[in-house]
């Protein structure tokens, strides 16, 4: 009774597909017509009928065409898939290889749904076509090997026939998005991410590894594409002559032991160039630096690619830097080298408390809880202390590379970034408290707030996809932040007014401006708000005063169709002219990828407009059109009427065209009766 697709004429296959598609339609109808309380009981049949369709050739297209009606049955409800904007591409590796049928089917379904979104056939409330496209490009990249060759033994053993579905979906995605573009788009995508210099590069490393594997597979013809990957691949697997062919760290160490000074110097500059080109560090680099520290310390500055500032700093604090390298840099934690190099360049070690605080860090004993968390996230080697040193180096070197991972903790990520940027020894203090004592105490208007006594944070659970510092500190910060919010219950207006300065630091302005009425959600005094923003931040209207301290701010995030998505925390870093003499706001977005399309032609730029690594930027007016909260110093008063009315009008129009569309208070509705 076994049934083989190959031997059946295509007519029979079509017939079979038609029958199964009809069954699927029946199951969709049953699920969508049932009341919410019994929906769940209809899901096994729906999932099974999707599985049956996907098992057949051409099944993916059938499911893609029904993506919207399937999603509307609530099949994703109660799971992460219900919020596609938070999905992490790298997790699809696991789910598409799962031995559990339901997991594979749901993951495949989610991909096909996003494909429908990316192709414009399905306007999703929480995901734009561009976002879906980005996401799918990454999914493809991470699962590239499913496109080529036959199922591996491991795949077959674990998944059996389920592998058919995973492979069919990836192939379908590639077909619909276009094979030749995948690799090149993927490479562009990687460069775009790498150019923001994130601290967490696990995903990026994984994608580059996949490309490297594909390029080395003689069965895969990439044609002319994939050339742009050379630098990416070599920076990870062969940054220099002596490791060009990726011989393994052991062989590499033997080779450099035999080298003379000139050859070592060339290795050092080769590694440094690769690192500064991409922000990615090769494990060979870690091996080289450890070797140089012992045998030829004078080359360390070359190996870190330091300028005169960095070299000066290195020479001033040589023992400390050596200790940090010795205790924190291993092939596994090689990324810490980039953080170390940039930290030296920032010159922050000249601030009196920083060097002694780093000495404390080198010797810091970790609590059992902290060790366990780091082990869970990063594995057993090297020991947790080394991971934490790497994390500290990365954060101090790349304060704008902090990301919140898949957690609703933008506030905590923003605070970490702000401290690393502005108050590094305070950050080191936080790390010590969290990692050693498992408790952080902050003060809210004089009242101590302990992370241990606070009930729960904003996030129910903090995931492990974070850098080592965030991994240990964010759970504490999140609880404290939530507790401060609770302490504001009963006060009128938005709690950020009080929480932000207490939470982030004294430099957050005590003046607070918001353009949304908390009770109704309607816009409030929009013009006044914008004038005030101009006279506080815009150098033409604030007496040409550059922003001194990073300031927390809140924005209304919109998608590429300019529809409101949610409130989000970010940091305004500076306001200045770009190379075209446009006034721009440069800011930090704790979201893992700042390059976003906010609709109405507002595309957040991450490079090419004067951004430093990790900064995002927008022209001043465009930024103002998404702003809803900012802080200021109440003692600095400007003249609001100096701001041209037409500038303000342009911005208010942008607000009305996007997130403010249905927030216009009643008296503003005279001309338009609006939807009833």
């Amino acid at each position, binding site marked *: *009774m*076994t*049934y083989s697709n190959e031997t059946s004429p295509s007519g029979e296959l079509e017939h*079979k597909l038609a*029958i199964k598609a009809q*069954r699927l339609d029946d*199951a969709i109808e049953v699920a969508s*017509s*049932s*009341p*919410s*309380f*019994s929906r769940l*009981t209809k899901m*096994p*049949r729906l999932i*099974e*009928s999707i599985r*049956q369709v996907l098992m057949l050739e051409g099944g993916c297209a059938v499911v893609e065409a029904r993506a919207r009606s399937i999603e509307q049955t609530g099949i994703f409800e109660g799971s992460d898939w219900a919020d596609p904007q938070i999905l992490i591409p790298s997790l699809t590796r696991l789910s598409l290889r799962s031995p559990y049928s339901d997991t594979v089917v749901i993951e495949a379904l989610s991909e096909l749904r996003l494909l429908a979104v990316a192709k414009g056939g399905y306007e999703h409330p929480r995901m734009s076509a561009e976002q879906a496209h980005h996401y799918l490009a990454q999914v493809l990249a991470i699962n590239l090997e499913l496109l080529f060759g036959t199922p591996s033994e491991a795949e077959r053993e674990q998944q059996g*026939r389920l592998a058919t579905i995973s492979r069919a979906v990836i192939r379908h995605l590639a077909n619909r998005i276009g094979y030749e573009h995948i690799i090149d788009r993927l490479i562009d995508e990687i460069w775009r991410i790498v150019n923001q210099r994130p601290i967490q590069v696990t995903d990026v490393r994984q994608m580059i590894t996949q490309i490297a594997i594909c390029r080395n597979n003689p069965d895969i013809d990439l044609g002319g594409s994939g050339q742009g990957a050379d630098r990416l691949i070599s920076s990870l697997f062969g940054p220099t002559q002596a490791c060009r062919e990726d011989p393994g760290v052991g062989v590499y160490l033997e080779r450099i032991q035999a080298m003379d000074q000139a050859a070592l110097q060339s290795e050092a500059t080769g590694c440094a160039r690769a690192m500064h080109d991409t922000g990615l560090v090769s494990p060979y680099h870690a091996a080289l630096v450890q070797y140089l520290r012992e045998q030829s310390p004078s080359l360390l500055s070359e190996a870190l690619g330091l300028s005169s500032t960095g070299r000066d700093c290195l020479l001033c604090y040589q023992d400390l830097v050596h200790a940090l390298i010795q205790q924190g840099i291993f092939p596994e934690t090689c990324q810490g080298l980039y953080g170390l190099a940039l930290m030296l360049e920032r010159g922050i070690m000249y601030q009196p408390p920083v060097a002694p605080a780093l000495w404390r860090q080198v010797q810091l004993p970790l609590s059992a809880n902290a060790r366990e968390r780091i082990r869970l996230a990063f594995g057993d080697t090297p020991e947790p202390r080394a991971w934490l040193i790497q994390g500290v180096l990365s954060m101090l070197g790349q304060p704008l590379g902090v990301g919140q991972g898949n957690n609703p903790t933008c506030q905590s990520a923003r605070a970490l970034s702000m401290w690393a940027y502005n108050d590094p020894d305070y950050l080191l203090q936080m790390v010590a408290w969290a990692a050693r004592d498992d408790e952080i105490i902050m003060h809210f208007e004089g009242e101590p707030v302990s992370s241990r006594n606070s009930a729960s944070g904003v996030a129910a659970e903090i995931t492990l996809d974070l850098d080592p510092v965030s991994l240990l500190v964010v759970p504490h910060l999140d609880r404290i932040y939530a507790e401060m919010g609770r302490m504001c219950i009963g006060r009128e207006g938005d709690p950020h007014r009080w929480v932000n300065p207490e939470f982030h630091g004294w430099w957050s302005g005590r003046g607070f401006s918001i353009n949304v009425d908390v009770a109704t959600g309607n816009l409030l005094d929009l013009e006044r708000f914008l004038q005030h923003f101009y006279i506080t931040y815009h150098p033409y209207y604030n007496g040409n005063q550059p922003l001194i301290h990073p300031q927390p701010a809140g924005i209304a995030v919109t998608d590429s169709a300019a529809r409101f998505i949610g409130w989000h925390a970010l940091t305004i870093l500076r306001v200045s002219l770009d190379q075209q003499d446009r006034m721009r706001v440069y800011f930090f977005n704790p979201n893992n990828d700042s390059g976003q399309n906010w609709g109405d032609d507002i595309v957040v730029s991450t490079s090419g407009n004067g951004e430093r690594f990790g900064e995002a930027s927008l022209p001043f007016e465009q930024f103002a059109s998404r702003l809803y909260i900012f802080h200021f110093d109440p003692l600095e008063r400007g003249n609001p009427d100096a701001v041209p009315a037409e500038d303000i009008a342009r911005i208010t129009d942008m607000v009305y065209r996007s997130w403010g569309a249905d927030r216009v208070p009643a008296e503003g509705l005279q001309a338009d009766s609006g939807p009833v």
Partner: protein
Amino acid sequence: MNSESKFNPEKGYVALLGWSLNAVEAAEKFDRRYVVVAPDWAEAYCEEHNIPYVPWNFERLNDRSVEIAQTLQEMGVDVAIPLFEETVEWAGAINSVLMDKPRLFGQAMLLRDKALMKRRAQLGGIRVGIFEEAHDKGDVIRFLKRVNQTLLKLDGDPNDPIHLKAFDKAGCLGHRVIRTPDEVDVIPEEEFPVLMESHLDGWEFAVEAWIHNGKVAFLNISEYVTLGYSVFVPATPDLEKYREQIKGEIEKLIKTFDIDFGFIHPEYFVTSDRTMYFGEVAYRPPGFKVFELLERAYGFNAYQALIMTFDPKTTEEEVKAFFPKEVEDAKGYAGCFGVYPRRRVVSKLEIPEETEDHDYFESHELTAPMEETVTKRTAFGTHWGLVYFFGDDPYRMRDLLKHQEELDFYV
């Protein structure tokens, strides 16, 4: 949502006795006002989902029973519908108050007790097998011997089996087959008293009949492939050829039990000489998801049909318009198979490839095993979950269901 306005004011207000999600769903989508009467564990769920609800624990009938009848009467409920065997006598008691027809209670008691039921059927001229009540193991051994003597078996000949059933349980619960006196020893004392029946070599099948104004409104014949394992609807032409005869039997039942409205679910044997033997009848929806199979095959919601035929305000025209034509209007054949693990030790669920690949295979509700060791089945036991099939050929369906018995779903 649950607004009053979506219900038709011309129609009745029904109470569903017992918790069945499928029944509630059907009611929610139908045009009658309804209320669920269920034990208090259902309360949170009903509240959360805005399901109209009255708490009641259906234990034994007692002197407080009238409270629920009065509550429902005050709410303006027109009729109570039993969803489970245990709520049949409650429905009878409540309806005798709501409708002011005391005989409904007596009728329900008859339908609840298998021995009384058989006697009544016998009195009505309906053919039943040999049966007796047993109060202890001695009674069982005597009955087994007597039945086999009657069949002129000699000592040493294999006995014809007898069947033991609990008086007041649904379907296969507590059903045992006894062939030798040794097997009597394993029956636990607490199962007594039981009803004993002679074994009939014949074809067992079930009927689902909706009754309105004392007449059969829709009659379905469910074909058992193997009792306790599998069933499908509509039946094969081999069984459907008895339809007229079966309808006659059902009309006898209606008359004998004085059933005016609602739904009955009797079981019969037909022997090789075309004689029909009555097994038992239940005044509630059948198990084994036959209602779901009917919906799959015909497209009408069997629970809504139940509500309609119970509702005293339902008109003749509505009933006519609601039901499709039996067999002719079926879109196909829908069947299900109850899976029992075949091995003593199992570690995982693995749907056989040939089942999964079969055109008729639709879905299953099997879950991964909770324990590795499979408890030995004593009585008919409970299956681990159902597998659903749908197709256009009744004979292929029958053979496919039969074939499933030889496959391992748990390995």
